[in-house]
């Protein structure tokens, strides 16, 4: 009897706790979360779309696809892409060196990688401008025909600064957790180090590298503070999309600013979707 009762009761209790969590505070914590999320993020963000829809399609298209706006998207997306590509190469190099090698001041170097996360963007912006202007430490050394500050390469430099930790910090853990077995197997079969890297290591870290690139790219297309000081900000040439939004706002052209913001937000959502897909890819790669 006693054994029957004791063996019957645990499954019953388990079932009950699965149906409703035994943890308290669901209503309070969930309520607070949804309230704060709605008030701070969801309602304000939806305002952009509702406001833009209120202006009608023609007005939206006239602003969102104006020549100046298209030029600004091209600058923002193009420079963010180049900076992301540069960071993919050097971010991988930095992650590799941090994971695989020992060298003096490694912990210091490791901490320095996070500087772009901690340094306010405006500070980075004026520092980079001071460095790469004609009279700056780096600008002085450059040949006269190669202007960086106030031209497109300046924007790329700023976005390279901002994006580096995204690539390093995404690739690093995957590289560190990677087992040596496949590398050993390849080496036994006579693979050189280079073959081992291109055929074994790179395919394993490729999803992480793609994720790091996408994170850096997504951050780059919206970046403002570090770019505007070094960009030159010439309409059609070095004007980034976020700056165009501000310019429209300052001219009280709310509809124009909102239309460009809608395009930028859709780009952000698309990047978010892409990142989710990449995460799935990475999970499968790690699992296999």
């Amino acid at each position, binding site marked *: 009897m006693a054994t029957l009762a004791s063996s019957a009761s645990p499954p019953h209790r388990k079932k009950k706790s699965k149906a409703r969590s035994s943890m308290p505070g669901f209503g309070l914590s969930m309520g607070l*979360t949804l309230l704060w999320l709605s008030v701070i993020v969801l309602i304000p963000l939806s305002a952009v779309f509702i406001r833009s829809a209120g202006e009608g399609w023609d007005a939206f298209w006239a602003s969102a696809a104006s020549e100046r706006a298209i030029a600004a998207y091209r600058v923002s997306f193009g420079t963010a892409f180049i900076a992301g590509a540069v960071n993919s190469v050097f971010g991988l190099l930095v992650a590799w060196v941090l994971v695989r090698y020992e060298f003096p001041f490694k912990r210091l170097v490791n901490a320095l990688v996070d500087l772009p996360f901690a340094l306010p963007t405006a500070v980075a912006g*004026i520092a980079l401008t001071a460095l790469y202007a004609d009279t700056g430490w780096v600008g002085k050394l450059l040949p006269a025909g190669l202007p960086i500050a106030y031209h497109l390469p300046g924007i790329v430099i700023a976005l390279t600064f901002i994006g580096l930790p995204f690539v390093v910090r995404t690739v690093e853990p995957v590289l560190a957790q990677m087992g040596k077995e496949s590398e050993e197997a390849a080496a036994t079969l006579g693979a050189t180090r280079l073959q081992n890297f291109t055929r074994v290591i790179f395919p394993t870290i490729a999803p992480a590298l793609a994720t790091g690139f996408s994170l850096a790219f997504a951050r780059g297309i*919206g970046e403002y503070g570090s770019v505007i000081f070094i960009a030159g900000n010439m309409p059609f040439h070095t004007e980034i999309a976020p700056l165009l*939004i501000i310019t429209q706002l300052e001219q009280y052209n709310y509809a124009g600013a909102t239309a460009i913001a809608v395009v930028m937000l859709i780009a952000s959502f698309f990047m978010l979707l892409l990142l989710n897909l990449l995460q799935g890819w990475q999970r499968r790669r790690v699992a296999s």
Partner: protein
Amino acid sequence: MRFRSPLQEGALVRSALILAALAYLLLILLLPLVAVFAEAFRAGLPGWIEAVAEPDARAAIKLTLLVAAIAVPLNVVFGIAASWAITKHDFRGKELLITLIDLPFSVSPVVSGLIYVLLFGAHGWFGAWLQEHDIEIIFALPGILLATVFVTFPFVARELIPLMTAQGRTDEEAALSLGASGWQTFWNVTLPNIRWGLLYGVLLCNARAMGEFGAVSVVSGHIRGETNTMPLHVEVLYNEYNFVAAFAVASLLAMLALITLILKTFLEWRHRDAIAAMGH
């Protein structure tokens, strides 16, 4: 005869890779940091002190501290509540909720400011009503706060969710079965368990709150001595070609960044296991 492991690059390749990585970090990261301090002290220590102690600079420092002191605790409360709901309970749509919490990270800072202008600005939805009741949000402290809370929204939750997922629910279940109330369980069991991860999140949240530029720039109105935070004050000085003063104020923010990095490194070193669970 020297033996080289087939899984190790040659010494020459290794040194070349290390040097290349260090050279890149030096050029891209370290040089700008050094430049901030070099420019800030170009007029010597007296020039630096003068720029930092000037009334508009002092007002900017005060405003930045005030904004962080309000925005960070708000997001700490939210972050803990969200992590508790997500990690201690099962419900449908959890993944979607996590994505929505992360959303502010992928929105351009300028758009983050714009959304509040569309709501509360003079031509915004509530603009006329606010004007009637003499409430200032845009070009005033509340607007700056809203924009700052938006951009720092995910930081705390993002650090806590992976940590609390890894820790599971067994500690809390034990406390509850011994008769502790929900609040007792939270204060005496959960909070001590997550304190280092929480501190880590607060650190990053605070750095961003004090340094935010784009979002705050849209809603602040750039009124000197009133609605200029430190990063905005740096911009104003810089655009006036007052470079020494601009870099002096910027050097304060750079020091904040350095302190953040030092504390972060310390936390990572001291509480490796807890931080590792957060998936960095």
